[in-house]
């Protein structure tokens, strides 16, 4: 079965191709084809999992050779798949959550004229994402990496008739290009250092490297790539705008799967990072900054999807932090990634369901008291909320608590690191509880604010909130079950971390600077305090329909802590000036020279063309003369 793993990628790829090529003929059934393609891929994944579980733990890293891809001198790249617990975890997450979201989209996109194209892109995304995680070399991974970038770009700008959406797509595209440069440089350094790009060579050779400088450089460049894809500081600015895409896209790509590819990259490159402690430290710092950054931004956003996006950023910050802790954190990073994939996708689908009922409004200040109208959405969203807060026994508790513990044991429990990273993770948990509860209460509790008068006398549009159709509800329910139970089930006896051992190695023994029980209790207390503050402000008291002016921090958080302004002044403006001057040079100097050359060529051309006069006699004469000239030249030059 494992040999048939290529089917995982081939099925959705064929699905995408059929949907794109069949054109309007497929409009009637195209979306179901999309669902089936994704579902079939999940079935294959499940079969591969069974085959994998039947093997010894030491035997669970399988390289499946597909074909010789590039044979260019010293560079030999074979296209192949690596099936191991890490990639399989991702494959199952992508195909399972992906299939649910496909089903959800059938109803969500029902009234969209371009539903078939949407499903084609979704299939394309699934194929590219699976290629990314299954690749057995960095080069093939890069193909998938670009593929998911393309799918993400196409889907963010899916409603590109709205200029803002097209701009958002472009922004994501450009920020990701910056990250790609990191990836390409990493590939080049890798080839220079190891002479190969496949995992088995590179990752085996990396620990034995005497020259730490090169490893650090490679790891830092990989980190740049990871930051772009995973919306980590300082390349996080695109994720909020990416919410312009349809909500199922936000759930699948910008919450559960693609944005976590950066974490995958770091964990997959574990041996490189482990050999470069400085790069690990940078990774942890980036994660810590992002987790606070996202949490603060999340507190101020009134757009339900953007608040969720900020939360995604912050949660991936947790994963990055965990990955940055090295061997004590790799497994927990993936564990949190998995549980997060479930509860965040569930909450995004919940947000989509709310939008569906509220005429596509995303302004939480116009929501409130929806729990009475959308019971299922409320409960399933509530499960996700409890999970992200880390309330036992919900999923998030098991994974996030481990990360906080590990953070308190950073750097072997010596020096400043455990205290700083531990505190950040701890505080982050408190803020997370605040903003997620704020989101939850503002949407589902308090007064209903969708029929209030605004201060300028105009009324908010009247809305008729209603529960969504069954096709949307069932995926939410299934994800809610996952949010509730998955973490606990996988945490039994450290089952999940043991499963990952063939890739990440066993979780190193670590001793937090504080007793585990204390950390756990403090975390829970902070979470409860955060949730209580949110309840007092957004459920117990009235929420103003128009956002209050707020403190300086709130205002800063609303505009993503001035990230866009920084980017604009630091990068965009100088870039534009440079481009303009280049265009000027190109027009005046290069084009001038080129047009001049073209003119000369045209003159020569028409001169030679005159010899082409159509008369056989002159053609024959030309041949004879040409031959004689040849003989003369040879006699002249020869010896």
């Amino acid at each position, binding site marked *: 079965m494992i040999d048939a793993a290529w089917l995982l990628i081939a099925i959705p790829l064929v699905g995408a191709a059929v949907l794109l090529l069949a054109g309007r003929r497929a409009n009637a059934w195209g979306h179901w084809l999309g669902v089936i393609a994704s579902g079939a891929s999940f079935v294959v994944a499940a079969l591969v999992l069974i085959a994998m579980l039947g093997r010894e733990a030491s035997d669970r890293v399988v390289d499946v050779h597909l*074909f*010789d*891809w*590039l*044979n260019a001198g010293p560079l030999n790249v074979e296209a192949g798949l690596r099936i191991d617990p890490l990639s399989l975890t991702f494959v199952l997450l992508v195909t399972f959550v992906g299939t649910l979201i496909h089903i959800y989209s059938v109803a969500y996109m029902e009234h969209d004229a371009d539903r078939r194209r949407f499903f084609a892109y979704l299939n394309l995304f699934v194929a590219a994402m699976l290629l990314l995680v299954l690749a057995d070399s960095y080069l093939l991974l890069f193909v998938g990496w670009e593929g998911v970038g393309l799918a993400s770009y196409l889907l963010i700008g899916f409603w590109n008739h709205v200029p803002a959406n097209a701009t958002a797509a472009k922004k994501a595209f450009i920020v990701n290009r910056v990250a790609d440069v990191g990836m390409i440089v990493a590939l080049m350094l890798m080839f220079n250092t190891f002479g190969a790009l496949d995992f088995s060579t590179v990752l085996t050779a990396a620990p034995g490297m005497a020259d730490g400088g090169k490893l650090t450089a490679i790891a830092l460049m990989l980190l740049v790539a990871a930051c772009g894809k995973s919306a980590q500081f300082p390349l996080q600015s695109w994720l909020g705008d990416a919410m312009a895409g349809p909500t199922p896209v936000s759930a699948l790509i910008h919450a559960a799967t693609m944005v976590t590819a950066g974490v995958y990259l770091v964990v997959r490159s574990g041996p490189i990072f482990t050999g470069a402690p400085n790069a690990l430290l940078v990774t942890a710092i980036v994660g810590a900054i992002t987790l606070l950054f996202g949490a603060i931004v999340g507190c101020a956003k009134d757009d339900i999807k953007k608040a969720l996006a900020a939360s995604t950023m912050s949660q991936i910050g947790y994963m990055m932090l965990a990955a940055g802790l090295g061997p004590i954190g790799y497994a927990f990073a993936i564990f949190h990634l998995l549980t997060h994939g479930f509860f965040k996708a569930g909450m995004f689908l919940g947000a989509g369901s709310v939008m569906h009922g509220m005429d596509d409004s995303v302004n939480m200040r116009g929501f409130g008291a929806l729990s009475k109208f959308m019971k299922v959405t409320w409960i399933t969203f509530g499960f996700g909320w409890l999970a992200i807060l880390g309330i036992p026994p919900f999923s998030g508790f098991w994974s996030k608590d481990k990360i906080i513990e590990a953070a308190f044991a950073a750097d072997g429990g010596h020096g400043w690191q455990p205290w700083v990273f531990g505190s950040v993770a701890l505080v982050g948990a408190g803020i997370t509880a605040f903003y997620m509860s704020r989101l939850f209460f503002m949407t589902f509790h308090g007064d209903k604010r969708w029929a209030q008068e605004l201060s300028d006398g105009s009324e908010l549009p009247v809305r008729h909130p209603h529960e969504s159709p069954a096709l949307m509800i069932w995926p939410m329910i299934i994800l809610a079950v996952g949010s509730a139970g998955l973490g606990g089930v996988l945490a039994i006896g450290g089952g999940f971390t043991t499963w990952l051992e063939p890739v990440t190695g066993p979780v190193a023994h670590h001793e937090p600077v504080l007793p585990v029980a204390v950390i756990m209790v403090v975390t829970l207390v902070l979470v409860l305090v955060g949730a209580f503050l949110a309840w007092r402000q957004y459920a117990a008291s009235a929420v103003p329909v128009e956002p209050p002016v707020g403190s300086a921090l709130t205002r800063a958080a609303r505009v993503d802590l001035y990230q866009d302004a920084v980017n604009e002044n630091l990068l965009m403006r100088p870039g534009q000036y440079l481009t303009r001057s280049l265009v000027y040079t190109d027009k005046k100097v290069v084009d001038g020279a080129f047009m001049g050359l*073209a003119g000369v*060529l*045209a003159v*020569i*051309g*028409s001169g*030679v*063309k*005159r*010899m*082409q*006069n*159509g*008369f*056989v006699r*002159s*053609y*024959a004469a*030309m*041949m004879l*003369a*040409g*031959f004689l*000239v*040849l*003989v003369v*030249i*040879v*006699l002249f*030059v*020869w*010896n």
Partner: protein
Amino acid sequence: MIAQAAQMAAAPGGFVPPEVAWFALTPLIIVISAGVLGVLVEAFVPANRRRVVQVIMAMAALAAAFAVIVWQGVSWFGEGGSGGVVVLGGVLQLDGVALLFQGLVVLMAFFALAVVIDRTSTKQDAFSPSAASIPGSEYEELARRLGLVQTEVYPLLMFAISGMMIFPAAGDLLTMFIALEVLSLPLYVLSGMARRRRLLSQEASFKYFVLGAFASAVFLFGAALLYGYSGSVKISEITTMASTVVGGGAPDHWELLWLVGILMVISGLLFKVGAVPFQAWTPDVYQGAPTPITGFMAACTKIAAFGALLRLIYAGGFSGTPDMLEAVRIALWVVAIATMIVGTVVGATQTDMKRMLGYSSIAHAGFVLVGILSFNGAGIKAVIFYLLAYGMATVGAFAVITLVRETGPGGEVLGEATHLGQWAGLGKRSPWLAGCFSVFLLSFAGIPLTAGFIAKFSAFSAAVEGTEVLGNATVLAVIGVLASAVAVFFYIRVIVIMFFMSPAETVVESVVETVDVAVLEPVVVGVGQGVANAAHTSVVVATGAPAVVVVRSEGPSAVTITVMAVGILVLGIFPAPVLDLIARMTGIG
């Protein structure tokens, strides 16, 4: 009994039956038999069924021949294979290179044939209903009304293909000459059979024939001189002779004999290749011949002729002396440089699609010569891959041209719309067709991710590598890269016209002037004047160009276009398997 017979046969003065390797000859026999049977079909099968029978037989023959070639490849070059066969005492050298060329010819011919048989939605093929009739005569009109079909096209094609299969495998100059004639004569006839613009077509046919006969004479004279020099027509023996006699110092009489002889033989081959200064016929014939035939000969003739050239120059595995190779090298350097420059520079000024592709094929001949002039193993492989890439793009591009037609005042579909300006806006009306055509053009231009890029890259890098004895051909590679850059201009220009110009910008429809087109033929007869004037026309067509329509393929052409476009992209992205195959068959690592 048999042993006795054999003894008797072996007796001195008795007849010795030659050993014939029938298996090795099978593909050739299949194709020639299809041609011979095709002639019988013309005689015995009722007219209304001839076309079907001919088409099926021709397609089946080519498919079967290709299958046998693959089989031969597997059995000779697989595990423990013999690595090739020498047939009839060295008349045919069926080694890996020859087999690759034969396979290439048959494969390209198969797809070119698919374009020939496609009558499109107009239900008319590209050939005159009665090629022997005088253009504009009542007899011609009668033949057209009766719906006659010239099915002789198919046996003629089969004979031409069989000649092309012998050409790159020929082991001596006489066989090579016979192959040259066998492949040429049918092409002369086919060139003159166009359904529309018949005078132009017949003129092309006549020019091709006269110039071709001239080139054949040059070839034959060269062969005679070489025989006089070495006492043999076998390429290997001539080479051996040359390597013993030709030494340093100024060439004496014998060396002059050899030199003029070899240059004449090479010139004869360069004529078929379409290299400067033997290129003059190319644009005229490409333009005049029926478009499916143009596609066929542009691809297959060039492949076969380069195969022969390769065999002549590389025969016996570089056994010639450095001096001898040096002489050939000097001549071919001059030819290659001139060919690349003339092909691209003049091509850039063309306004007719078929003429433009004609000049493009001249330029490509120059690029292939660069690969040959590397004088190393990588060059041989590069040449073969280049011809594959070039052949695919050529067959596909001419197939596209057969589908883009002019319409008359009453909306009836006329001949091909070959003026560049008439292609404006094609990208909007037929995005798939225009997309495929763009793929072919990009491959011609050598843009990465197409087969053309890999081809150019391998040819030029082989030239830069060169050999120890003869040095490298970096200068040629540089000129080649520059010429490619110029060529990019005229390929991309077509893409720009197709996708970014609207028909209104280039074509002004005018019913009064479309009448002119109907009587265009006599006007174009004097291509001399026509071309002299064309020097002043720009890309943008003047008023009076008729409306343009894309006709639907019956199927085969569409398949050809799709297969070629996909093939070019696949070869551009995953060239490794084909490169490996070529390396294995040629035995060059």
